[in-house]
């Protein structure tokens, strides 16, 4: 499966030249560096702006694959192959809505289009988001704080932030608040910074970190 994916990728790249970075040109030859950032190969007779025919592109993609696997790719290639071999389809975690297979057929082991690698990829992305939040949470300046106070000073490990209790009527604010409203309140008051926009990536990352510390805790919206 991984081999197939790489082939497709390289073919696409060769066709559109989107992944190819021309590095040198002599006569009508074009030297390109591959997306690994290291391997370089030459496409003879390729002029500037010229689009390869599908047949030619297939040949070029195959050559590129060889160049790549001969260089830095060898090791990763082997690990990807091993990973693909060990990947078993995961049981579907939730039934999709709509008139589908009856529940009896949804036994463990039912094929799904998602693989372990998909899950790993998603996990990595999620982890990065949470880690960005962790950094801002533990840095007095990252949230625009001006007096040396950071979130963790009052809320170690996200404690006493109780994100699972929002939305709730925050009596001190005299209105219903979401977790992000309280993060912004803290930025403005104890941290003496300026509140962040709703779509600010740092605000969203801090929210993600705080929520991650309460994973598995039951929601109790409106709890005091």
């Amino acid at each position: 499966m991984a081999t197939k994916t790489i082939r497709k990728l390289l073919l696409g790249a060769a066709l559109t030249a989107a992944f190819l970075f021309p590095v040198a040109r002599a006569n009508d030859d074009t030297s390109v560096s591959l997306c690994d950032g290291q391997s370089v190969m030459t496409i003879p007779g390729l002029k500037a702006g010229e689009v390869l025919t599908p047949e030619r592109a297939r040949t070029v993609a195959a050559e590129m694959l060889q160049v790549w696997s001969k260089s830095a790719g060898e090791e990763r290639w082997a690990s990807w192959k091993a990973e693909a071999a060990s990947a078993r389809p995961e049981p579907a975690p939730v039934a999709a809505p709509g008139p589908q297979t009856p529940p009896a057929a949804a036994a463990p082991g039912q094929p799904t289009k998602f693989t372990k690698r998909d899950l790993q990829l998603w996990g990595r992305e999620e982890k990065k988001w949470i880690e960005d939040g962790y950094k801002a949470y533990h840095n007095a300046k990252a949230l625009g704080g001006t007096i040396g106070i950071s979130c963790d000073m009052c809320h170690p490990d996200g404690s006493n932030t109780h994100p699972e209790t929002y939305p709730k009527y925050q009596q001190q604010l005299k209105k219903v608040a979401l977790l992000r409203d309280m993060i912004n309140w803290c930025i403005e008051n104890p941290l003496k910074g300026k509140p962040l926009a709703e779509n600010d990536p740092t605000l969203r990352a801090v929210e993600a970190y705080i929520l991650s510390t309460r994973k598995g805790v039951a929601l109790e919206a409106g709890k005091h």
Partner: protein
Amino acid sequence: MKKDRFEKYLDDRDAYFGRVARLGRRDFITAAGLAAAGAAATGKLLPHSFQPVDVVRADGPSFRFAYISDSHLYEKTLNERFVRAILKAVDDVNAMNPQPDFVLYGGDLAQLGQPGELGEGAQILKALKAKTYMMVGEHDWYLDMGEKWRSLFGKDTYSFDHKGVHFVVLNSVIVEDYWTGPGLTPMQRMQAMAQLDNPNGRPFTVGAAQRDWLGSDLAKVKPETPVIVFSHSPLYKIYKNWNFWTDDAEQVQTILQPFKNVTVIHGHTHQMLSNRIGNIHFHGMLSTAWPWPYAPQGLPKLTVRMNRADPFDEFDGCGDGFVDVLSAGHVDKQYNLWSRNPVKVSAAYLGSDGAADRPATETDVNY
């Protein structure tokens, strides 16, 4: 041009420090008074009395000392909030009548061990009318391994006798070296130690050298002499991840075992915290700067928790307090919570394992 909220705040802060700088030591308390008055004017501060309620009892107080702890001062160019708070505590203690026999400072005077932070703290504490005993915390220590702190306040481990009670002050924030290997700079080491929830931290210890010292110091003390130990971290184990913990606590407790009445008073935890292990009563101290949440595990059953602090009141959950040393040897410990009723945790309560004299718990949740 109209100033925004933060610019106005900076103006206020400059004006405040300007007043503090102009005041001599004699008038210093007025500055603290101004801080309190300012807060009261905003309606955020309940007026309270720091004066003790006299209780007539057979096992009466022999003497009283006060405490201030965990002020976490930044240099004043950065932050005045924590300065206001320690000034408020100094004001409280100076207003006590009669004056306490002495004041214990419970550690973490500075936030990042900077000479400017420690110097600022030392200058503020000079305004105390009563004699002050100093204890060190990890925030004071790990920038220069205590060099500046010792130059200002002297030894970090010592003992003294007062009215028939033997007092011991320990440095309980010793951790094994985890900075030389990765080549951390002094500031990186300080910041690592200053992060309570640092997953790469190391547990606090008293350490073999101080345990040996403690053993020999106590060798000349009679078993019936009351012993009161000051340590920054609790000398028992609550929650390792936040260093609400001393790794060699059991070994220290064993050294204290031969004495009939032992009390340990600790800082670091910024909350009401009570425990008893055999002959040893344990009491936490409040922080002037901010309250910590209770740890997710390890809370002793004798602890009467304080309510969650109201973040909209910068003094809620903070405070100072005093200790009445009873003629029988143990102590009644008073938590002077600035925005709440004071709470006393008595020797009778801990001595009876919670059967008698249970402290009042707050039922009115004020946030």
